[in-house]
Structures are given as structure tokens and as C-alpha cells.
């Protein structure tokens, strides 16, 4: 029940998931692996956050899922992005970039001030 075991700001995990899923149908375990890999082990997604997030996104219609076989021949739940999810990803990414830019501006200016 304690929230955000990853140190990600609220809502960021959703964005990351959408981004990873954009690359093609992928199952939950691979999503966690992929985020960890891409972030070079900085971000470790706990399943306690990952699966509720996946189900939430699916429920909101941003992700869709189907059961199919993996390379190893086992059945897994593969998530892919819906059209709604793609739009959402685009706008969220835009938002995030703006936010990051704004935060950086502030951080840099305050650094300069204090120096």
C-alpha cells in the first residue's frame, strides 16, 4: 500500500510504459527489463507498481492486451498501444519535455544565483 517504490515522480511510470510499449507488443516482464536496461539500471520498476499501472492503462483504454506465445513457447499477456494510447503518449511526452525544460531552467538559474 505504500506507494511509488520506484523513485519516479507521479505519473511518470505511465509515460515510460507507454513509450516502451510503442516499440511493439510486449509483456509485463519485458517492460520492466526494458525500462531497467534503457535507463542503465537507474530505474528499477517494482512489479508492485508495474502491474497495477498496466491494468490501469488497460482499463483506461490506452493499452490493449492479448495472450500469445513467447519465443520460448509459453503464453504471456502482450500489451500494445491503442490509438488513444498513441495520442496520449504524444501529449504526455510533450508535457514532460516542457516540464523538464522548465525545471532545468529553474535549477540552472538558481544555481547561478547562489554562486
Amino acid at each position, binding site marked *: 500500500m505504500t506507494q511509488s517504490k520506484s523513485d519516479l515522480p507521479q505519473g511518470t511510470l505511465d509515460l515510460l510504459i507507454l513509450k516502451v510499449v510503442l516499440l511493439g507488443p510486449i509483456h509485463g516482464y519485458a517492460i520492466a527489463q526494458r525500462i531497467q536496461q534503457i535507463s542503465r539500471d537507474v530505474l528499477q520498476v517494482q512489479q*508492485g507498481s508495474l*502491474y*497495477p*499501472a*498496466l*491494468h490501469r492503462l*488497460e482499463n483506461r483504454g490506452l493499452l490493449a492486451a492479448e495472450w500469445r506465445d513467447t519465443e520460448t513457447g509459453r503464453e504471456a*499477456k502482450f500489451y500494445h498501444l491503442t490509438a488513444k494510447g498513441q495520442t496520449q503518449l504524444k501529449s504526455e511526452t510533450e508535457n514532460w519535455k516542457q516540464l523538464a525544460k522548465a525545471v532545468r531552467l529553474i535549477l540552472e538559474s538558481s544555481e547561478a544565483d547562489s554562486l
Partner: protein
Amino acid sequence: MRWWRRLAKRGEMERHLDAELRFHFDGLVADNLRAGMSEPEARRSARLQFGGVEQVKEECRDARGLAWLDGIVSDLRFALRGFRRDWAFTLASIAMLALAIGLNVTVFTVMDAILFRGVPLVKGNDQLLFIQERYPSGRCCVSYPDFEDWRSQAHAFQSMAFMADGLVPFRERQERPTDVFAFDVSTNLFRLLGVQPMLGRDFVPADEAPGAPLVAILNYRFWESRFGKRADIAGLAVQIDGAPATIIGVMPEGLDFPTQGHMWIPIAHTPALQQRGLTPGGFEVVGRLRDGASLEDARTELVTINRRLEAEYPVTNRNLFINLFSYSAQIAGENATRIFGSLWAGACLVLLIACANLTNLTLARTIGRSREFSTRIALGAGQWRMVWQILEESLMLAGAGGALGWWITNWAVRTWAVATASPYQVVDYTINSGIFAYLVAISIAAAILVSLPPIGRVVRMEMKGALKGDARGVTEGPRGKHLTAALVVSQTALAVVLLSGAGVLVRSFVAIVSADTGVRDPEHILVGSVRLPSDKYSIPNARIGYFERLDAQLRTIPDVEQEAVASALPAGLGNLRPFEIEGRPDQQDRGDSAHFLSVGSKYFRLVGAPPISGRDFDDRDRTGAVPVAIVNESFTAKFWPGEQPLGKHLRATDRSPPGEWRTVVGVVPNIMQGDLIRQSFKPLIYLPARQEPVGRRAYFLLRASLPRDQLASAVRAEVQKVDPDVLLTDFGTLKAHFAFDRDSMDAEHSELAKQAAVSPIFALIALLLAAIGLYAVMAHSVSQRTKEVGVRMATGAAGEDIRRMILSEGMLPVAIGIILGLVASLAVNRILQSQLVGVSSYDPITMAGAPVILFLVALLACQIPARRATRINPTEALRWE
């Protein structure tokens, strides 16, 4: 996907969720293996990494937004499992709730019907007012000329209608007429009520005009029974009171106004009707208030008009006072609101007691289940989930209780309606959707009330982290003990209040029924009521002749010792009439009044009250002879204290010109007459039935050696022989007539009689509930303290000590509750004071009896768990550890 489809697919989703997480877990294991761990190591590490599977699942379910529904379903299943395990608890709770809810809703339905619903079918009942006039002597009811003045002058009313009633002979063709009950009404009555005839036409003002052809509108019931609902009834030529008349319509089913009758006919404007002053025949006036006008406005206005009339007609209208009633006051007395309100309050108290009991039982269960709850909390179940679960369980119990209660209500209201049915009271007892809504509302309220304390406990438990406590048997903290003790105190107090309230009501009722009537062995006196058809017996001499023949016939029955006629039975009403005593003209208050009775010559010997001075009536006292009268002791005590009454003269003054002076020839002992609550002997004037014949409805009395059953057929045969058209009813012993005859009671006291019959049921239920509650608390406490008792016994406490300890623990809150209850009932019974007869609201017998009964019952309820405690085997109790 719609939520219900999801619900249907819930099992599949659960499987998928499971598979998805397992897949992830296996992925972790595989990675670990690849990193070079051994198989068991890889698994353990994966488990550590993965964390609480259940919690993840729970959050996934939450994320799907269907959590609440899933939660409900699983909680329901969980609760049902729990109920099956604690079946005794479940049955007791449901039974308790069903009783309390059923009782409450029943009382609510009756209260609603009597106080708020009004006359069935009538529009805008709350605007209707019933109006009567009365002389200070008690004589009533409405003078027609006064009514016309009100109708033309009072602005508080939209309209007003006059109503009289009476039996009239009715026939269709040439058969013998039968008497039917007809209301003589102003022709605007049905327009005032807002009800249309279902067949034919309504009255028009012309129907009331002098010389207009007589018309009649039938009551549905009469149309059904007499005419088999024939559709061509309108226009049928009949004879009413010997005159040709036409039936013009039928009112819809269920319209009985002002009470049950056979038909309505327009009021006949005879010279007698137009006389000022109260004459027999006027019944009452119904008025419809203008929008925004109140009963008080109407009263003020009518009183003003009457004052004007009093100045104008001092002889007839002096001291006339006016009574206005709403519908509920009309059918149930002025105190109806208070009577039924307090009845309902009583039913609410019973419901509260049931809730307190259930709370106690639920609390006991919650404590027993505290490990379950704390485990679930530790496993990550949300606090709200726990709260919701408790609430849900209570709702299920209340739902079952409410459903049974609904059944009880239907049964009880029907029983009540049948038991209290009276032609003089038209009440709509249908159970409508509003009643159902009320039932649902109180069931839910009860569920919430019952859940609050256990919820509080669970919330506290979470804060404390109960799992850390004594896992072997979480014992109650002092706070829980105080709470259960407080519940015992309050329900004991409530039971005392209800018991003492019921006690004074019942004792008041008994005081009325068992009052001394002055009649000697009424169980050996047989009485019957005869109704003489009006076409033959309108002339007084015809009635005198009839009763002489009846007397002769009845005395031919071998076992009949004496026979007498009377215009009213003992304990019934008399005919209240104003009178004057010779030499004492014009007393204040328009003279004195007394109840007049016409009786046969053997009446006094028959009822066991022969004259104590002077003589009895005899065969000489007939029309044409010297007019005589006999008075009772009360009369002489009031009007001739210390004087010799024999030979004095008096006469009734309500007819103009007043009758002849009558000579008092005897004084008889007091017999109960004219006092509905039978608490005092009124002054009575008896007239010989051969001089002042009884009316067309009269009574005969027989003193016979045989019981009623064996005489009944012989008496019927003789009555039939004298005149086959005379209707004999109510044949039974006088003793049976003394039992409560609600039709002869005034509205208020008949309601009280009902209350006296109902309130002991309340009190018994309250007592039973209090006993169950106390038992539950004590039984639970004993089982909680098994270990402690074991230790005490192991260290040398005797069984008697243990018993005393348990008893004193249980009886202390009972004692406190009794004291509080006594104090409260002193206050509550004051409300009843005005309605009590022959008993004080602080009646010592009741006030001592109620606590004693309660104490004994409580002692019994405590005794069982206390005995169980003494049988605890110390070694076994300690092995529990």
C-alpha cells in the same frame, strides 16, 4: 466491457492475472538461473524481489475499477460463510430484527392511517374539518339553522355540508320494507369531498328543494349485496320511508362517508329541521377549509358567529359551544396524535433495544474475530474494506430481518384492521409503497447503528496493530467492557419504561372493564337488542303494545324468571336531557341535565336494585295515568341533598312545550349508566316504559336459570312469533356486554383500549430482547474469561464464589438500568396521565412491579452463563494456553 460482463468474467480475469504474475515470477527465476544461481536460490531471490503477490493482485483489481464490486461479492461470500458458522448468532439476530422491525412498521402503518391518511378516496383530506355543537350538559350535535349561518358567513371555509343519519324503511317493489342506514346530507357533500359517483349522477341543489322528488345514491357495498351490482340501477324506482324515490347513482367502492351506511339521500327541509337549538337528528357538519386557512381561523370565526347567534336567540343558543375536529381527532379522539405518537415512540424504543442487542452480539463476534481482522489488515486489506465488510454483514442481517419484518407487518396490520373494524370508523389500512420505503429506511438505519461500534473497534485495532497483542485470545479492553455495560444499562432502562407504561395502561383498562356497575350477578342476566321496523312502529303506542306482547311471550319460556324492557343497557349510555325541578326555575347554564331511561316495571328487581325508598314501577304506570319517575341515589345526593325526594316534581325541558310534571315515586340504588369510562354513578331519571315508550331500538333483559346457549333458540322463536319483522341482535349475557364494547365508547377511550391491548406486546418483546441481550453479553463475557475463571478456581475459589462474581458483574448494569428506567418512566407516564382512568401515572403497583419483573428475568438470563462458569474445569481451562 460492461461491469456485469466483467463480473461474469471475473473468474477468467483472476486466472489471467495469476498467469501474468506467474509469468513474471518465472522470468525472474530464469534470469537468476542465468546469472548462475542454483535453482532454490534463484526461487528465493525471485520471491524476495517480487514481494507480496496478493497485494499486487489487490492493486491490480483496484486499478481495474471494479474493485468495489469484486469486493462486495467476495465479502458477501465471506459473510455468508461466517453466518453459516455462527448460525445461532445469525438466527437470533434476524429474529430479533424481524420482530422489532415488524412491530415498528406495523405501528407506523396504523399511525399513518389514523393520523395522516384521512378518509379513503376523499381529495385534500387535510382541509376537512368536522364540526359539532354541544350544550354544557353534553347534549349535541348540530342545529341546522346554525349550520346555514356558518355556511353563509364563515370565510375560512370553501364549502360546508350538513349530515344527519337514521334508519329508514326501504323497499323495491311490494315486498316488506327493510330498514337501511341512510345519511341525510346537503346535496353539495360529494362535490365538497371531490368524489364522483361511479354510476349515475351526483346530487344537484334542486334535489334538496322542498317538494323535489326523492332521490338516493347508493353505497357500493349495498349496491353489491342488494342489487348484485346491476348496471341499470340508475333510474330504478323504489320506496324510501313509504315515499316513492329514485336511485340516481352509486358511489365508488370504498367510499364510506362519514361512516358506513347503505345510502345517501338529500336532507329533507322539515319544520323540525329548521328549529333553532339542538334537536335530535343533527349529526355533524363537514367543512372544507379555504387554502391557507387553519383550524384555529375556522374556530375563531365560528365562535364569533355563534356568539352573535347567542345574542339573537338566547333561549336556544345559550352556552352552545362548538367543537372542530380534524379527521384523526374525529375517528380517534383529540389525543390521537399523542396516543399513536407514543405508541410509535414505544415501537422505536423496541427497535433501539433490538439494535443494542445486535450491537452487543456483533461486538462479541468482532472481538472473537479480531485475529481474523488483524491478519487481513496485516495482509494489506484496506481499512475501508474492513469497515465496509462489517457494514455489509449488518446490512445482510437487517435485510433478512426487514424481509421477515415485512411479512410480519402485512400479517399484523391485517389482523389489527380486522380486530378493530367498526362501522363507525373508516380507516384506510392499505400497506403502500411509502410504508415499504419506511421499512427499508429503518432497516438500513438499524444496520448502520449496529455497525458503528464494531467499526470503531476495527479502526482502533488497525491503529494499534492488534496482531502484536495476545494472539491467543484477544481479550476485551476496559473500553469494550464499558460499552457493552452501557448497552445493557440502556436496554434495561428502555424495558423498564415500556413495562411501566404498559402496566399503567393495562391497569387503567382493567379499572374500566372491572368497574362496579351496581348490577347483581350480570352473568345470569340475558339481554337482547331488538330493532323495530319504522313502518309499523313509529307510533309510541305500537311500541308499547309490542313490548307487552313480547313480555307475555318470553315469560312462557319455562326457565325465564323475569323479563323487562329498557331503552339502554346498564353501563351503556342514557338519553342525556335537560330537566327542571318544580320550584327551582331557570337555573344557570340552561338548566341541569340527567340521563333519562325508559324501563319496564320489573327492571329494578331484575338487575338486583329494587327501590330503597318509595315504590317500584307497576302496571298502573301507563299512558293516561299520573306521570311518575324514579331517580337514583346519585340524583338525590346531587339535587336534593338531605331532602325527601318522594313526591317532588320534575320534567324534561327539551321539547316545546315541556312535558308534564312527573312525580318522583321511588329512589333506587346506583346503576352504572352514561359514563363511558365507568368511574362514577351519574344522576339518573327512570321513566316507566308504558308512559314514555322506548325507541325503535331497545333492549330486553331476562333473568333465567338456564345458560344462554340453551335459551337462545327458544328466545329467538318467541321473538319471531311476536313479529317476524323485528330484528334480534346481540343476544348474550349482560356480563359479556360489560366487556369492552368499543362501539359504545367514545373515540378516545376506544383508542386507549386498543393501546392497552397492544402495549403489553411491546413490553413483552422489550423484556425478551433485554433478556436476550443480557444473556448474550454474559455468555460472551464468561467464554472470554474461561482462563481467568480457571486460574481462580485452581487457586481455590469455590463454584459459589465464581457464580457470585459473574452474577454481580451482570446484575450491576441491570440495577443501574432499572433505576434510570424508573426515573425515565416517571416522566414518560406523565404523558399518559390525561388518558388514564382509575389509576395514577405513578401507580405504585406498576412502578414496583416492572423493576421486580425485569430484575427476575435478568437474574435468570445471567444465571445460565454463571452456572456455566462454575462448571469450568480448571485444568482444562488452563490447558487452553
